[in-house]
């Protein structure tokens, strides 16, 4: 089996008396999109900035493409691309100039016109950086991150603060990277981002990794229940659904019944039988699987964005 492209072992980092990362370990295989999911202040950015070579770890082992980010200098930088949590460029630098400048800094670079087309920046190619919208700035940051055709891409909160439309555009770009078999490490506190984009996720809280695996496996392994929302032709008496097989709790909400089930198939079979017996019928039924948010709540007792 090939060595992981990104390898982090027992990583520690403090800023003065403030501990930012406490014993973080994970590995990312080639071509994998790996997410660090956690609330603000969990230590995600510190971890990714250590991986980018921007910060020095206090303790632990870090390897990217087999290289130590602190020791390997330009050889390392030629192989990575990155979006910082906040990218800034001079106000009066034009979009095309920025991409061409960064292309010139690398030994190998992508076609800059192609990058402008791909990131829908052709019309803005002569615009000053200060006149770009948040989404355009982020697309430019992505173009600059890919200007050297990197092997590994680090994306630190790439959609934070962007509107849903722009966020979806960024997701499309990251899915392109996934199809191109790039190794991507993404930090986020958006559940849907981690679930949609990541092959594997490490949940980070209180400066350490508290669970990792594929989003599906994390949800499957959790004790989180499936939520079933249903509407009936005739209302039921209080508590009539609470005794159905595998139902953990039931409550009525605005004419709908909301059940939480540990075994949804068994619950639905039992529900249909009971309704038939009572001469009632289903008007609608929706099921909601446990999300990574549920997993996070189960692990920490808090919501992700509290």
């Amino acid at each position, binding site marked *: 089996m090939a060595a992981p492209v990104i390898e982090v072992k027992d990583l520690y980092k403090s800023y003065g008396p403030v501990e930012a990362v406490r014993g973080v370990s994970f590995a990312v295989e080639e071509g994998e999109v790996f997410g660090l999911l956690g609330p603000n202040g969990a230590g995600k950015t510190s971890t990714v900035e250590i991986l980018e070579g921007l910060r020095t770890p206090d303790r632990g082992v870090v390897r990217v493409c087999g290289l130590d980010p602190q020791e390997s200098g330009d050889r390392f930088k030629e192989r990575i691309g*990155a979006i*910082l949590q906040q990218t800034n*460029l*001079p106000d*009066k630098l034009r979009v095309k100039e920025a991409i061409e400048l960064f292309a*010139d800094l*690398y*030994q190998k670079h992508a076609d800059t016109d192609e990058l402008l087309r791909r990131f829908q920046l052709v019309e803005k190619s002569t615009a000053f950086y200060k006149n770009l919208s948040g989404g355009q700035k982020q697309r430019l940051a992505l173009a600059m991150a890919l200007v050297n*055709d990197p092997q590994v891409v680090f994306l630190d909160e790439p959609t934070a603060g962007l509107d849903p439309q722009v966020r979806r555009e960024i997701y499309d770009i990251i899915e392109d990277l996934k199809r*191109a078999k790039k190794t991507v490490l993404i930090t986020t506190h958006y559940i849907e981002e981690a679930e949609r984009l990541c092959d594997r996720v490490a949940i980070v809280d209180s400066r350490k990794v508290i669970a990792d695996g594929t989003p599906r496996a994390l949800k499957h392994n959790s004790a989180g229940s499936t939520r079933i929302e249903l509407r009936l032709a005739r209302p039921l008496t209080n508590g009539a659904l609470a005794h159905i097989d595998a139902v953990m709790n039931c409550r009525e909400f605005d004419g709908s019944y909301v059940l939480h089930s540990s075994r949804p198939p068994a619950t639905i079979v039992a529900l249909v039988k009971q309704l038939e017996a009572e001469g009632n019928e289903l008007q609608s039924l929706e099921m909601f699987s446990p999300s990574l948010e549920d997993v996070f709540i189960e692990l920490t007792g808090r919501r992700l964005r509290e």
Partner: protein
Amino acid sequence: MSASQAIDRGSRPKYFAATWSLTKVRMLLAMRNRTFFFFSLMMPMLFLIALVIFVGRHGGFISEYALGDLLTLTVMGSFWGLSVQLVTFREQGILRRFRLAPIGAGPLLASSILSNYVMTLPTLFVEILVCRWVLHIQNWGNPWAIFLLITFGSAAFSAFGLIIASVTNTMQETQLINQLIWLGFLFLSGATVPLSLMPMWIRRAALFMPATYLAAGLQTSTTNTVNFFDLATDLLGLAVSLWVAFEISRRLFRWEPEAKVPGRAKLWVIAAMIPFFVFGAYENLHGHLLDHIDQTLNFHSIAASQPTRPALPAQAEIPPQLSNLR
């Protein structure tokens, strides 16, 4: 992005190419910056207008001498802009983005110095042309000496500015230190008030300042009262200072806005001044720079009494009483 789309530069000398690319962008940014236009183009032109008003009627040597001062002020201005710009870039987090690219501090700093030099040259050229036209200066001075002093002076003073940027943590701190040092350069170097008019202790202290060597060198070069080899001390001082200042600013360079320079690192600034401590000590003990400065001013006093003095095409035509000038 497939690898096949990538363009490989092979063994191209990367640092040179990166420095040149950064230099071009820095020049573009400067040309789009109103503050740059004011301080780098308008201010020197205001000095030039003042010069024309106050010196214009004298003509001859006085004008040539004053042109040397004007060029000195413009070249010393290199000190200002770069430190402010670098601190701004750091505070805004712009340098962080460059840190991810495979370039070190060297190309970034070199591009600052180079772009500043290229952007200063047209101003200096205009000043020389306007002085020749409006002040009726017939003498081209010593063009090679002027060129070398401008080149090494601009680079050295830019590098001093970069050191200031490296050891200050905020824009306010940078501005304060810049102002203090600039005032010293302005009034103690002989560029605005001739050193010959100063008390002896100030004149001796001025010998420890880089600006003094630049001012003295340009004054004697524009008046053509010097031959090329006599400028060795000035040029050597500026060249060594450039090298030392560049190396120190490269070592102290900080990419991160929150990275604070340790107190002891500020002592490195003193290292940038070592060449001038050495030259200052030498000049105070054994040198003749102050004598030369006095003689140049006497020379101008004599010349000022001959407002229509013809041009001095060659050293051989300098009057005998002035032949010992450097």
